[in-house]
């Protein structure tokens, strides 16, 4: 059976060249970068080389890159660390309602500890209006955090316009670029941000290595203390192989992004058209043009996401669902709620995220496989039955 992985927003495979770069750092070059002897220095040099490569990917200086274990850790460090180190400026935060939970939860924790938060909504395509940010900023505002691209619906936010406002008002600006880095150009100078999170396993690096970019001179309070690593910003012996892998993945992405954008967007558009042509009552979520090139988020009426996911899995196709039934609270995705997706249709949502390993044949296989699954589930659905009866009446 054909195997089609369409869940690159969850994670990507490690690129063979990335693995090759990592391998010496497990058994041979296993040293601790904090040690002065040769074996330690060898590891230290590898970490610094990875820092230079990661910096180059986003137009930063090497000394502005701080490695973390995950994108979630980078986001936690940014939110809590920037607020704690710059609290003398005030006590107000501005974030969008569609941020990843690794931004929203630390923000909520800070809200509980006394900070005031403005949650900015978006339009129906998931776009934040920069004017709303300008209006939300007060004398008390310390930090604005708006994601570069949304991890579910792929909408790319107007970061350059927002940073003009934050610079003018003297407010720190963090962007979560975990979903976008490696797939579209991410340049901290062009974006104008003070802090940016990225994660290696989103673009063919290994899990376990991510980074926070911090513009030179921006103060932050470490969230893991007790070590000199990462200039004291993040204690803990470095995961050298993973960091080396992140560096290699960044090096590959730096030259490969234009090709990636073209390759996956052509396939994505083919998939989108194929599904829209074959399935009735289907809605494409996110912005029609300002969208990550590998993202396709679709909602189908009268069917539930997890059921589709499980049937697709039986046919060798791996996707994600945004279904309420999988979440503890039985709530729809907060992103779909924010963009105003009808709650009844939000539960029939699939996130299909493409990658460089997908072929046209893979896409055509999905276009062949999904419509009959939707039809089968609709025939099993009381909501579909009601609709048919209503239409007949």
């Amino acid at each position, binding site marked *: 059976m054909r195997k089609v992985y369409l869940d690159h927003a969850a994670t990507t495979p490690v690129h063979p060249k990335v693995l090759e770069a990592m391998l010496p750092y497990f058994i041979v070059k296993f040293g601790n970068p904090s040690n002065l002897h040769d074996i330690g220095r060898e590891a230290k040099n590898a970490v610094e080389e990875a820092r230079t490569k990661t910096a180059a990917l986003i137009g930063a200086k090497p000394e502005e890159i701080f490695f973390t274990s995950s994108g979630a850790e980078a986001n936690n460090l940014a939110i809590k660390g920037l607020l704690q180190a710059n609290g003398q400026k005030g006590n107000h935060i501005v974030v969008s309602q569609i941020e990843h939970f690794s931004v929203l939860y630390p923000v909520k924790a800070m809200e509980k500890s006394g900070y005031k938060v403005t949650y900015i909504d978006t339009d129906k395509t998931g776009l934040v209006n920069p004017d709303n940010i300008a209006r939300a900023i007060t004398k008390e505002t310390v930090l604005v955090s708006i994601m570069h691209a949304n991890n579910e619906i792929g909408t790319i936010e107007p970061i350059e316009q927002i940073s003009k406002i934050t610079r003018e008002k003297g407010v720190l600006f963090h962007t979560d670029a975990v979903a976008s880095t490696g797939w579209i150009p991410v340049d901290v100078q062009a974006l104008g941000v003070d802090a940016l999170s990225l994660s290696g396993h989103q673009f063919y690096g290994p899990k376990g290595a991510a980074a926070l970019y911090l513009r030179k001179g921006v103060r932050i309070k470490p969230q893991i203390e007790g070590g000199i690593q990462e200039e004291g910003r993040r204690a803990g012996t470095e995961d050298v192989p993973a960091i080396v892998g992140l560096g290699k993945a960044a090096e590959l992405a730096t030259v490969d992004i234009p090709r990636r954008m073209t390759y996956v967007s052509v396939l994505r558009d083919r998939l989108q058209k194929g599904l829209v042509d074959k399935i009735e009552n289907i809605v494409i979520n996110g912005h029609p043009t300002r969208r990550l090139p590998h993202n396709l988020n679709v909602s189908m009426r009268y069917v539930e996401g*997890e*059921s589709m996911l499980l049937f697709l899995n*039986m046919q060798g196709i791996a996707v994600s669902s945004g279904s*309420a039934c999988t979440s503890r609270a*039985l709530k729809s995705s907060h992103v779909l709620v924010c963009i105003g997706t009808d709650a009844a249709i939000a539960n029939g949502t699939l996130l299909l995220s493409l990658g460089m390993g997908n072929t046209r044949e893979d896409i055509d296989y999905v276009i062949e496989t999904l419509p009959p699954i939707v039809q089968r589930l609709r025939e099993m*659905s*009381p909501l*579909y039955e009601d609709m048919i009866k209503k239409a007949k009446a």
Partner: protein
Amino acid sequence: MEQYSSKVMEHFAQPHNVGEIPDADGVGTVGNPVCGDVMRLYIKVANNIITEAKFKTFGCGAAIATSSMVTDMVKGKSIDEALKISNAAVAEALGGLPKVKMHCSVLAEEALKSALDDYYKKKGIPSPVKIPAEAGHEHNME
């Protein structure tokens, strides 16, 4: 999330008793599309025995599997026996359900009780059925 048992996957992949009964003696619809699952259960009753049961379900793997299982379980049972089928029994028959999916078995029990309630109402008999209220969420159809 915990993985589904092989029994759940069996009932999900090839659900038993899918469909409608046009001249059903009792029909119960429970759940809410907003919460992600809606179950409709049809029963035929002859001489106090449930002779036929069918379902239609909008929902996740567990919702479809519990619907399939509960319709299997009621067939051939008397009304009194059917009333005693609990959500725990449905979950157990499926080899257990992930914790976050236990509400699906509650929904299956509710759907059955709702169909039985409808049966009594259609017969003009005062209904002895108590439909359990699922903790934490409303199940009014919109």
